[in-house]
């Protein structure tokens, strides 16, 4: 036998695999998988960013005539909220590394609130814009990029809620086993980095 680390993975019963996934008693390949997944995800964004940059550089007038100026204050505040939420979230992981489940819950809850504020701000911005999705190439890009990112923030929020619910179960997360915490945090950082690039490209450039 190859040792207990991989055994949980090789079972055939879905329940057992699930059990293995929940209890993480093995060397963790899953973070490795999450990193690979995020590499793939980043290339979706990369593809869209590159398309945006190409439009920017080849279309003679950019943004096309008649595009109203984007307001910077609200998105700026939003950016600050989202970026700082990453640091807040990291404290949650530090807490669980010290077996402090309530700390994890508090920090993750704060992150979730900040994420929700970000999304609300985004929606507020949408509702106050003078242009629509199909007005011109710039506005289409604007909505698709921010919308696709917003979708990712939403997924990140769901992951955080998932961790919060799971953490109600005593002993589910511990300093030994915190895959869910780590994975959702990495995902959140990823979404964060994407936003910073997006903000730079769409709002500032």
């Amino acid at each position, binding site marked *: 036998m190859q040792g207990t680390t991989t055994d949980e993975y090789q079972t*055939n019963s879905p329940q057992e695999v699930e059990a293995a996934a929940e209890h993480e008693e093995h060397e963790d390949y899953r973070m490795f998988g999450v990193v690979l997944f995020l590499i793939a995800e980043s290339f979706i964004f990369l593809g869209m960013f590159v398309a945006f940059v190409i439009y920017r550089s080849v279309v003679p007038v950019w943004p096309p005539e008649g595009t109203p100026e984007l307001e910077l204050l609200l998105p700026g505040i939003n950016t600050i909220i989202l970026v700082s939420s990453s640091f807040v979230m990291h404290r949650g992981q530090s807490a669980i590394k010290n077996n402090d489940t309530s700390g994890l819950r508090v920090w993750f809850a704060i992150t979730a609130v900040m994420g929700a504020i970000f999304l609300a701000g985004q929606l507020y911005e949408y509702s106050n814009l003078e242009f629509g999705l199909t007005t011109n190439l710039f506005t289409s890009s604007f909505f698709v990029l921010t919308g696709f990112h917003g979708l990712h923030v939403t997924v990140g929020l769901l992951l955080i809620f998932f961790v919060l619910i799971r953490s109600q179960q005593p002993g589910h997360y511990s300093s030994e086993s915190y895959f869910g915490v780590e994975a959702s945090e990495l995902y959140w950082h990823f979404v964060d980095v994407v936003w910073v690039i997006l903000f730079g490209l769409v709002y500032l450039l």
Partner: protein
Amino acid sequence: MTTQTEVSTGAQPPEPEVEKQRTWRDYFTFNTDHKVIGIQYLVTSFIFYLIGGALAGVMRTELATPNPNFVQPEFYNRLFTMHGTIMIFLWIIPAGAGFANYLIPLMIGAKDMAFPRLNAVAFWIIPIGGLLLLGSFFVGAPQAGWTSYPPLSLLTGKAGEELWILSVLLLGTSSILGAINFVTTIWKMRVPSMGWNDMPLLCWSMLATSGLILIGTPVLAAAMILLSFDLIVGTTFFNPTGGGDPIVYQHMFWFYSHPAVYIMILPFFGIISEVLPVHARKPIFAYRAIAYSNLAISFLGLLVWAHHMFTSGTPGWLRMFFMATTMLIAVPTGIKVFSWCATLWGGKISLNSSMLFGMGFISAFLIGGLSGVMVASVPFDIHVHDTYFIVAHLHYVLFGGSVLGLFAGIYHWFPKMTGHMLNETWGRIHFALTFIGLNLTFLPMHELGLLGMNRRIALYDAEFQLLNLVCTAGSYLLAVSTIPFLVNAIWSWIRGRQASGNPWKALTLEWQTSSPPAIENFDEEPVLWSGPYDYGIDVLSADSEESVEELLSEVQADVR
């Protein structure tokens, strides 16, 4: 999906210790065993191969005469769109994933893939995506080609095009999930004594393939999402009437779809590298060169996409850059072909079905590779781009390469997968029909393209008819060639001769277990007692009198 999970939960008592046997029902459930999934992949993709082949048959029938008298031109466009999409996304890519799923855990001595449930999810997306794609026939199938270039794709029927997009997105997702699994499994789960350079070459090629999938497929997804917006909502990312740029789509599409060519061929490079040494009884020639050339191909493969756009909106200097990278990629590919030939040279070749398909692979892929170098040259490509020369080239690579490699793999591993031997005579008939049919169908297309026949047309000049008739005849031969295979496979699966654990006396780990392997692959952890291709070396230790010199002189005698 949930119901399937429940079904399989009910069907399988959760006691892995009890000696279990697979039943046929397992293959229709959400099963997490990589061997079940591998076979599910292979069988599903084979069904789609038959469908895609049938579409090609209709197309070739139409092209037997210059006028559109068998199907309407519009329907003809639907046919080749679906033919291309099915053959690429539902036959070759999943079939490669099927082999990799089945073999990689066995080859590296693992009990399963790293993420078995993810693996099953990745598989079950395939039939869903496939049915969605086929379903588009009921709402007006897409007719803008598998490349789906806007603006044409935005003007030829929303429903069919959107179904096509959704299906490609689904199949791409499946491919990405599979790639995550392969990389993690190969990277992390080898038996402790297996270093990087002890890995069977299929593992190397799947590593390279998965890298391409992880980097390329998401960009295709981005293109599909934007195209969807253009199609449904009326944005104009790729629509010039609103200021958009159709060339941007082409870049995004080919950034995936050229690597996709390597995604389709690399797994079969791996399979050929497994098959040849076993049946030639000789170590693979230049293991490291073959292994690392996978990585070189994979890296260069990401830098050549615009050679599909030499006549499109690509400025001259960019054409020159992509010509250079494309030419360079011939070097690692050439290394492989030469090494395979050197592997055969001086061996003791069993000309069984698997080996025949393996040698047929080298022979046909060579033609595709040579025409590939030709079309890399910009001035020449300007002439042949979008003509039947390209059709010939791509079919020599994908049919002569991937599909022959795939059959070599099936004849090689069928005993392992099913526990039964395939019938050799029928296998050889299958090879002869396929190989003759392949050359008959695709060789004349080179000349058609050079003379001036463009591709994707339902009607053509009468002067091209003779060669087209030859192609059509060849395609019928190809259609016939699947019959001996189907009969052979089904019959042998049920009542073929029992196969031993290692009928080919091969050295890779999958042959160290029973045929078919136990549910958890190995009864005890396999021991790596030799390199994957150390043929001839154990003979030395057995009869210690024979030295290398004497063995060499034997070869010399053979040469003379």
